[in-house]
């Protein structure tokens, strides 16, 4: 299975490389460093959110509240910047992350402790988190002129040739790779999603893994909330509206199985990169931006159909459990090792 997964990511990478080369041949502006840097900066939030969402989907869950969480924690960070401009920047960012973590822990608690289906919980908290912004601000927004200068300058800083959001995304990606591949807890996400019953018999707590997954997702959303608000210079209740579905789409294109237990860091990053390239390529190709959504939809459908073809059809087997058991025992062996 692992060679198959590897080749799938390789295929996606090759498609992306060919697409970039073709668009670059059409108009060399696209492959200029400035454009690539802009594209990566623009997509950095999606990279991180998609990785965090992948961890949630690995446990057979889904988090629809990421965009609302991003908006609320970004808003709180902006409020701190507005009312306490003397607070050091690192504390403002930490506030965003802490708020995001707290919101994620609320999701995780409801899901892991009470056993409510994730889609129900996050559908509810999605509305609550977004509405909280209105309640906090009384319908006001925080504008660029009200945020601190440093607060807004940080995501535009360039360090060793790359903007800070790109560096953060690289750092977060490496952390995710190390965590998911080299730690016992990280492998636990795969085990719980691959086969919850087997994972339980191996002493892996499903509830704890779920709680952890939503908390991580929340903290990452908080970080992205700060980056989003600071980069675009405005914080109000509608920012990133509907972005949760883009994040899930990036995971799906990257080969993360919605059934849980399947997904890699590299694949998810490539899925997010794909959406980022589509968004920046359209203006270069002089195609109306209105095409963006239709293309993304077609790509998602193509990706799920191809991924399904690559896997065997489960209902042709008499005992689908046997296959899933096999998969998760392998995951378990890796977790033990």
């Amino acid at each position, binding site marked *: 299975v692992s060679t198959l997964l590897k080749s799938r990511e390789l295929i996606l990478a090759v498609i992306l490389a060919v697409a970039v080369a073709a668009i670059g041949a059409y108009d060399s502006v696209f492959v200029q460093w400035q454009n690539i840097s802009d594209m990566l900066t623009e997509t950095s939030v999606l990279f991180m959110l998609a990785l965090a969402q992948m961890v949630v989907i690995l446990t057979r869950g889904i988090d629809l509240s990421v965009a609302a969480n991003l908006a609320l924690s970004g808003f709180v960070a902006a409020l701190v910047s507005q009312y306490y401009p003397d607070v050091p920047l690192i504390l403002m960012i930490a506030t965003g992350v802490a708020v995001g973590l707290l919101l994620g822990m609320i999701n995780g608690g*409801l899901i892991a402790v009470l056993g*409510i289906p994730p889609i129900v919980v996050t559908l509810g908290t999605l509305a609550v988190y977004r*509405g909280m912004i209105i309640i906090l601000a009384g319908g006001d927004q925080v504008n660029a002129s009200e945020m601190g200068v440093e607060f807004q300058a940080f995501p535009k800083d360039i360090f060793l040739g790359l903007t800070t959001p790109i560096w953060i995304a690289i750092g977060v990606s490496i952390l995710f790779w190390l965590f998911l591949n080299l730690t016992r807890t990280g492998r636990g996400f795969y085990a719980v999603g691959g086969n*919850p019953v087997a994972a339980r018999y191996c002493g892996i707590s499903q509830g704890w893994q779920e709680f952890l997954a939503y908390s991580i997702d929340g903290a990452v959303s908080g970080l992205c909330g700060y980056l989003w608000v600071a980069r675009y210079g405005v914080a109000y209740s509608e920012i990133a509206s509907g972005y949760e579905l883009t994040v899930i789409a990036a995971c799906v294109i990257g080969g993360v199985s919605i059934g849980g237990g399947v997904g890699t860091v590299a694949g998810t990053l490539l899925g997010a990169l794909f959406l980022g390239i589509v968004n920046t390529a359209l203006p270069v190709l002089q195609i*109306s931006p*209105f095409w963006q959504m239709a293309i993304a939809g077609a790509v998602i459908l193509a990706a799920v*159909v191809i991924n*399904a073809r690559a896997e065997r059809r489960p209902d042709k087997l008499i005992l689908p459990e046997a296959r899933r058991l096999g998969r998760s025992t392998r995951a378990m062996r890796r977790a033990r090792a």
Partner: protein
Amino acid sequence: MNAPMPPGEQQDRYTVLDAPPWRLRDALLRWEVILVILLVLTIVVNALVSPVFLDVYNLADATSNFSEMAIIALGMALLILVRDIDLSVAAIVALAAMSIGYAADAGWSPAMLFVVGIVVGLLCGAFNGIVVTWFNLPSIVVTIGTMSLFRGITQVILGDQALTKYPQPFLDLGQNYFIPMTETSVPWLFVPPVPLSFLIFLVLALIFGIVLHTTAVGRKLFAIGSNPVAARFSGIPVDRLRFLLFVLSGIMSGLAGALLTARLGSMRSNIAIGWELDIVTMVILGGVSIAGGVGSILGVFLAVLVLGLVRFGMSINNIPGQVVSVYVGLLLIAVISIPRIFEKLRARRAGR
């Protein structure tokens, strides 16, 4: 949803349990009873807070604000019952509304405009159904994709323009009361004004309820939702029924698109945006289990009324829409978690 079976609590697989005896406490804990209590509470609180809440004209107008969503919720309820979901409904509304707009430009009659909406919905639903059942894909992923695709097509064709030319008889269907207010000689006995969309919702809810709860097809849907594999082995055409449910969900969305266009009198590519999550909220609050196999049309009907009246009551008290969403979100989580908390406590007491 996927909680592992705790060891030791597993029933012997060959025992068939008797139905538990009827008890008053179980009946009171039924979901529909909770919803009725919520509904009464909503009405009483609103009537106390605002004197204009119980005005029949106000209530009639309130119904038209949620009837289109409620019509789609009926189709969604059946899909969730069989463990599927359709997140593309709002995008289908947009695509149907756009087709209606162009057909109206071409001078088609109001009845034909409704047919156009329904046919577009049917085609979109069939597309969803084919992709989900032929390729055996999770419907949540497929319909996220088609949501993007359908709304994307609307955006590509329409760009940033709006369609506003509709024949007056078509607009009348959406904006006037279908059944006008008729008073009788007895002062408290009257026929309330009913908008067309609410009337259609009532009729459809009745039909859906009868089909789901009294016919063989309805039992088959419950069987699929409880255990799709066992349902298939008992000779139920699982994939064909699921396909038909996606078509049905598309038809409902197309019909809702026609009603919405007639009510608003204009459409842009962002029409009905974000509705899919509101509709899923209605269905889940109605007691349909996201894990499949549990739910009733009566529950969905009551949840639609509760949510509609909560929103209406708050809007006449000048509470902004997103704050209302906070209450709706809290209501959803509270209503789902309170029975579970009780269950946990009871289990803990029993364990001692």
